[in-house]
């Protein structure tokens, strides 16, 4: 079986939220077939390592198989949180994209499900398809 190394954003997307000094980052598979890959490789320790420079006190992973998603909760990574941090991004809103750059080993038969970057498909002035 051949594999290649791909950035996580080709297999998943996510969003960061914050409460106090705690950050949560969702990792959501672009396709159900990619979910087992995420479970196997985007582990608590892999995520802790990714954020090592922020010294997380604890990283917890919650699995949501019915959503093909995972939720990571990182304790004490926001330098005190929105009221205490000196970071311009005191909420840590940019953190999900830091995680989505993590390398992922992807077997070739799953490549068909990976997202890829194309030219932007819409301009800001494009009319949305009307709702049904």
């Amino acid at each position, binding site marked *: 079986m051949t594999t290649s190394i791909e950035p996580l954003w080709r297999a998943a997307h996510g*969003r960061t939220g914050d409460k106090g000094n705690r950050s949560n980052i969702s990792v959501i598979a672009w396709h159900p077939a990619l979910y087992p890959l995420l479970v196997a490789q985007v582990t608590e320790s892999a995520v802790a390592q990714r954020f090592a420079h*922020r010294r997380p006190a604890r990283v917890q992973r919650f699995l949501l198989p019915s959503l093909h998603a995972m939720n990571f909760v990182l304790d004490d990574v926001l330098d005190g949180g929105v009221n*205490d941090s000196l970071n311009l991004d005191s909420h840590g809103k940019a953190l999900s994209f830091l995680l989505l750059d993590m390398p992922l080993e992807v077997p070739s038969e799953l490549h068909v499900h990976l997202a890829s970057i194309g030219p932007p498909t819409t301009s800001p002035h494009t009319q949305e398809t009307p*709702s049904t």
Partner: protein
Amino acid sequence: MNKDVLRVGCAAGFSGDRTDAARPVVDALIESGGPSVLIFETLAERTLALAQIARRANPQLGYEPLLDEMLRPVLADCLAHGIRIVSNFGAANPRGAARRIAELAQELNLPAARIAVVSGDDVSGADHRDALNSGLQGALAGREVVSANAYLGAEPIASALTAGAQIVVCGRVSDPSLTVGPAIAHFGWRVDEWDRLARATMAGHLLECGAQVTGGYYADPGLKDVAGLARLGYPIAEIDLDGQCVITKPSGSGGRVDEHIVKEQLLYEVHDPSAYVTPDVVADLSDAQVRQVGGDRVLLHGVRGHPRTDSLKVNVCCASGWLAEAEISYAGARAEGRARLAAGIVRERLAGIGPLRVDLIGVSSVIADDAGHWLEAVPDSGATDVRLRMALRHADRAQAERLAREMVALYTCGPAGGGGVRTSLRPTLGTLSFLMQRRLVAPRYDFFDPQQERA
């Protein structure tokens, strides 16, 4: 038109959201024709403390500063079409907000509206001081409390609506309760129907950040494209008798509602997905599913509920000192090296003052940590347009001011070619949280009475 559906539209996800969001939502609610509610969620963790400070300066204020801009375009139509308005835009002064709404109705020549004011969230007074002190285990010692508020639940909102309120003005209530309250009132649920409350809670959770569930905060050009971000449609939840919901948005508006977007928002600010705790219920997402059921229509189902806890979250804000920030730019050959040298000079001049953050904007603006571990480990990348930013917090204003002076002095004493110094100094607030016994908090509502206000 399905009479068994309650439509809840959300026209604001935070204080500072687009103020022209409500009009298309209200138009869509009118077109749908069934029972409907418009909510505005405008209260983040810190917003209430800022509102409290505003109220101290002027007792008439302390509610959402953009209240007029939000309500003026839609108030007449909401009243005329029976669209109830529920919001936490009362902030630190719900009665003040109610007074302003009554005035606004008068200015617009509208009949007097039945406005309910929810109270009981403010626990900053003497009655609760013992509970605050024990809950925070001494952390309050020597600190000035700016605000202390318990997160109230849906019950006072539901009661006010059942009693005929057309507008319900709240201060601190949990964000999803703005949706759960109207659902309880409309469907006549008991407050221990945990599955139904949990489903409505997650509907409210999806709504509470406004456009974040309709394509806002999602776009990544080429990978996650979203059309029409400049005219995003804000969300509408169609909630059924069992609390299940379909998320949609006004037709013809910008943005999109799809499964991926709804999943991102479903998990936003969630920790343990099997126990999303609100004052109303403990919602369980373990078996939650989303399904596209039409264009810009996503169904959320499979949410379960567990009994609510016997405590309420309380946020306490204290004055915490001063935040000083200062910046200077370097450009051209060896710019990054000169910016790093400048940071080192300021560090040496301010040695011992406390944690001092360094960012090299152009190399890194947010990835690095306050302690500087990241920046230390990264060698000079040779960037040729770099803005040095330094920041520090200090309890003492005079100490905090030293950062600005040192940055300005780099003009003549620092590396070559530095320019564009900007400095700022702001008072800061710290937030502490704890759980208070539910029985110590007395949520209630009453109708705003302009006669009484004048008396």
